[in-house]
């Protein structure tokens, strides 16, 4: 089974993140960039499927030159090779444009299964897999907490607030994963050393046959007009116990969808 994992490099969500005030895009150059957290689960799932079904895992990344760090980490975890789409013209692209680039890159690869994260921690639009499914005309099994592969049949438990849906589709298909699906492995030192020798193919928009005028900030379907910092934390809610403290607490937690 040939698997392509979509891996995005994002600013570390554990640190202070910024938008670039000159064009309101994500400030990537100055950020501490890491693999999008959810994508580590996607990589782990791809490796697990490969271990049981055989085949090859290819990493696909659209991002600036520095995204090679994310690619190298994916390779050191055990992926076999990578395609890195990097082109100045992509800067500032919206989700719709990015999906066109990813779809074009996927069309040049052989795949039975595409696995990606359910959302990125920077854009957080959570639509990439749906957009790709539409563009490539393949089924989309979204928000997986479990994936089972049986020949060309894919079974997914799609996580919901109240439980899960059982989904099934035939390959080729795209699956997006939540962090409940597995526990990503750490790259071993041998894996780190091996990654050095694994092939990484860098492609430009021209290599993909994508017209540079159709992507980038100027023609994005959405544009960030303005932004403001998150307001400081409010006072919070004070629960005074008048014999019904527990009920009030549970009521509050439920209203916040925490229980």
């Amino acid at each position, binding site marked *: 089974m040939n698997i392509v994992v979509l891996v995005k490099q994002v600013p570390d969500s554990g640190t202070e993140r910024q938008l670039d005030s000159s064009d309101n895009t994500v400030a990537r150059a100055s950020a501490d960039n890491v693999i999008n957290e959810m994508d580590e689960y996607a990589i782990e799932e791809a490796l697990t499927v490969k271990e049981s079904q055989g085949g090859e895992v290819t990493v696909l990344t659209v991002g600036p030159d520095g995204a090679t760090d994310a690619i*190298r980490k994916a390779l*050191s975890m055990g992926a076999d090779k990578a395609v890195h789409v990097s082109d100045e013209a992509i800067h500032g692209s919206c989700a719709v444009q990015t999906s066109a680039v990813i779809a074009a890159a996927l069309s040049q690869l052989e795949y039975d299964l595409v696995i990606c994260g359910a959302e990125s921690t920077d854009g957080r639009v959570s639509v990439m897999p749906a957009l790709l499914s539409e563009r490539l005309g393949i089924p989309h099994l979204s928000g997986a907490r479990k994936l089972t592969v049986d020949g060309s049949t894919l079974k997914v438990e799609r996580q919901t607030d109240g439980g899960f849906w059982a989904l099934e589709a035939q390959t080729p298909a795209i699956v997006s994963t939540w962090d409940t699906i597995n526990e990503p492995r*750490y790259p*071993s*030192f*041998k894996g780190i*050393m091996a*990654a*050095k020798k694994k092939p990484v193919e860098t492609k430009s928009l021209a290599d993909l046959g994508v017209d540079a005028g159709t992507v980038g900030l100027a023609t994005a379907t959405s544009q960030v007009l303005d932004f403001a910092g998150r307001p400081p934390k409010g006072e919070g809610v004070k629960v005074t116990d008048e014999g019904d403290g527990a009920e009030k607490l549970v009521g509050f937690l439920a209203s916040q969808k925490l229980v």
Partner: protein
Amino acid sequence: MVLDYRLDTETEALRTMVREFANEVVRPQIGAFYEADEFPTAIVRQMGELGLFGLPIPEEYGGSGGDYFTLCVALEELARVDSSIAITLEAGVSLGAMPIFRFGTPAQKKEWLPRLCAGEALGAFGLTEAGGGSDAGSTRTTARLEDGQWVVNGSKAFITNSGTDLTELVTVTAVTGTRPDGGKEISAIIVPSGTPGFVVGQRYSKVGWNASDTRELSFTDVRVPAENLVGDRGRGYAQFLSILDEGRIAIAALAVGLAQGCVDESVKYAAEREAFGSPIGRNQAIQFMIADMEVRASTARLAYYRAAERMLRGEPFKREAAIAKLYSSEMAMENARYATQVHGGYGFMNEFPVARFYRDAKILEIGEGTSEVQRMLIARSLGVGA
């Protein structure tokens, strides 16, 4: 001019991996093992799977194919979170596996290294005796050749990794005869765990390193094959000393990790803790303590980088290793004292990492050559007192 201490991409990736492992796997559990005086076997096995126990050993022996510096980097990152785990790795590799890798026969390498490198087995190294550590030449344990077997008698004190569920061997130094100059002929011999007459004592009750395994060993007519001799007969002492030189760089890296962990914890705490209506970090007294801690940690790091660099280039590094070990262990002790001070009363509570750092720092000035021994070596290298 060559002056470049940047890490290459692979070593940087290793550092990141070990940092994540230390924070995500070690940090949440280690306090409980420490409190219970328990050896964290499962964590150690996982470190084995990541290839940490084989870092400086080539792949043909089951190692990971890195070098001694990569081991140091891993030790630093582990010790930033916990020293018991770090010393388990340090002793397992630099004292357990390295003597066999450096001086073992092809058969010994084949028999022991793959399992040691994989972290499936742990090796220990028994030099110190109750009667003497610094003066290792005073060894009283003996081994005599009889019917193609070494017969070992004696005891060893304070031996790390010697009684864990994973321990499979201890390499011991023993007197095997008299040198032509009348001095003791000391050799190193592998004693597999479980050999009749080899008794592993109870764990010591220690001030620190409580999740690391340290035991007293005794040998009564313990018989092992003559082939278990490691290295050359009569050169055991010299070979041991060279192993200790390397090990000092590793201990220095571990001390730097502890010292950096003190900075990490103090920076965090200084921002969180409030006194007199504002975070304690607003006070210059606290800022200066933390600044000094950072200065010591980064200076000590340069010292061990330099020693490692000389070692990897095949240049003499005995003095540089002693400098790194001496400075980093003493400054780790200082940092632990300051970090505890920054934490006030909470710093004296075992549930806070800095309390562990405080308890774990002292041994760094004693193990693998006391501070006095390091000073002796440094002075001797300068020709003082000759």
